[in-house]
């Protein structure tokens, strides 16, 4: 962004003309997935939500399951997720996405159902629903975006806020003696017999983006097996509420979030379990 503002106006137009000349069908190597709607997202620049949305819709496209997929948006920054995904969706009450998903999946067991939730929604107000949905082994995918903060309401402390991390409701840094410890809910979910596949991913570098997509692809494939809940935590950023540039926030993910929330699989089904 800084680079672009440094360009003179003339140079900028020159670049645009050049860019247009290479934008032809035969040069196309990467395009918007058909199920991701061509609208401007409300997310802040650099936010991980856009990437995670795209990955989900890429997977839905690649599996060709648009007509069989129902998504649940939560309350939080991704409350408007249904504005961006060209699939049937429901908007759930705060914390209740997995209960709504349970209702859908139980009456439409042959469909693919996923929830998309933030840390306040899934790990604070919706903890009960999260635990019991996973413990019942509902055959759904839960995508959990963890950026350690309540984004939509303006940067308050979340259940996942790191010790010492400053938010508007922990202005002197989270004091674990007063405000308790960050909740590693994916680790809890992994201990439940109803969960089938639990993994913690990130989207702060292209390599991790690819890994996160792989996890999503696997989760949708596993859903067909009907063997339990798939849970993908995505450790993400919040440039606006962390008061950082996108680049700084991604660095902060690596340096601060990942040591507390290490990436990798927390529960992997055996080959025997994934055999069709």
């Amino acid at each position, binding site marked *: 962004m800084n680079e672009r503002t440094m360009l003179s106006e003339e140079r900028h137009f020159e670049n645009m003309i050049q860019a247009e000349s290479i934008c032809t069908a035969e040069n196309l190597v990467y395009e918007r997935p058909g199920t991701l709607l061509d609208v401007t997202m409300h997310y802040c620049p650099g936010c991980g939500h856009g990437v995670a949305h795209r990955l989900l819709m890429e997977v839905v496209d690649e599996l060709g399951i*648009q*007509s*069989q*997929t*129902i998504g*649940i*948006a939560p309350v939080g920054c991704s*409350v*408007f997720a*249904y504005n961006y*995904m*060209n*699939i*049937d*969706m*429901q*908007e*759930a*009450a705060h914390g*209740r996405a997995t*209960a*709504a*998903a*349970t*209702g*859908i999946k*139980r*009456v*439409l067991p042959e*469909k693919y159902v996923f929830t998309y939730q933030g840390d306040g929604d899934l790990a604070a107000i919706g903890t*009960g*629903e999260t635990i*019991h949905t996973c413990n019942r082994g509902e055959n759904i995918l839960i995508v959990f975006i963890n950026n350690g903060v309540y984004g939509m309401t303006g940067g308050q402390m979340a259940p996942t806020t790191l010790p010492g991390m400053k938010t508007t409701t922990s202005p002197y840094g989270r004091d674990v003696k007063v405000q308790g410890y960050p909740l590693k809910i994916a680790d809890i979910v992994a201990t439940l017999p109803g969960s089938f596949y639990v993994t913690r991913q990130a989207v702060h570098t292209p390599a991790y983006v690819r890994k996160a997509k792989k996890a999503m692809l696997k989760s949708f494939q596993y859903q067909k097996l009907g063997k339990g809940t798939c849970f993908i935590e995505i450790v993400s950023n919040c440039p606006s509420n962390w008061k950082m540039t996108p680049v700084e926030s991604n660095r902060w993910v690596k340096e601060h979030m990942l040591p507390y929330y290490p990436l990798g699989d927390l529960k992997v089904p055996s080959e025997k379990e994934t055999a069709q």
Partner: protein
Amino acid sequence: MKGNEALAEAAIRSGCDAYFGYPITPQSEVLEYLSKFANMRTGMVVLQAESEVASINMVYGAAGTGKRVMTSSSSPGISLMQEGISYIACAELPCLIVNVNRGGPGLGTIQPAQGDYFQAVKGGGHGDYRLIVLAPASVQEMSDFVPLAFDLAFKWRNPVMILSDGALGQMMEKVDLFEEQPRRTAVEPWATVGKPKDRERNIITSLFIEPQKMEEVNLKLQAKYREIEKTEVRYETVDCEDAEYLLTAYGLVARICHKAAQIGREQGIKIGVFRPKTLYPFPSAALNELSRRVKWILDVEMNAGQMVEDVRLAVEGNARVEFHGRMGGIVPTPEEILGKLKEKLSGGLS
């Protein structure tokens, strides 16, 4: 059959697709009965949730797919569901919610009461919305009102509540069960069942962040409620043709009032009974008409006086409206009600 069991049996026979619930006295027989029989008979989904909060949100999700979905609970559990009910009303999803009313406030008592009238009839959760509220007065109606509730819910895309009480839920009476209907296979055009290529995506939401849009949604809901008020009023009158005094009551209390009126007539006091079957829409016009022909009205409830407000609004001062209520799970006797009426007569109210 027990009232709760008749209701559960009626749910199976109505072609109900799914029930989500949580145990609470005095309605646990609904969940128990369905757990025992429903799935094996019709394939109906029966799931015990981890809380009433989860139950109602499971109902929300499943109702969004256009299926026939229900839950049941009793007063404290219904309080927990209020947020979800508000979402369901705003998202215009059809479903059935059964409240087997017990005494409150707080954890209260497990005995019958009518203290949830306001909560059921005036909204209950946040925002301007209405449930269609049916008030059964017998085990027969605990059964009959279930298919009616589903029909109304789908006709108006609105949540319907059956407001019963602990006595109706627990008492045993003979009941004529209706023929079993097959489960529906029709797919509602608005339902989230997966978007085929040839239609726009369906969104179930109650979020309309722009004030203009939110007002539009509210106006649409209000217009629907006005239509419901015009067309869905249901009530019963007993011995009202020549009545000089009118008892108004709903549910179980109306049955007790019938007995009180009968004893009163044997003593030469001409008493009629007016019973709303729909608490919302309230039968205001019919009651207004009737109120012009009686000397005064005694409204009887198992609460501190809730429906009486709607009675007074309906009567528009045509007749004096007195009130007698019992609370905390105490059920008034016919003699008590008649005594109250006579007491007011001898007290100068003629």
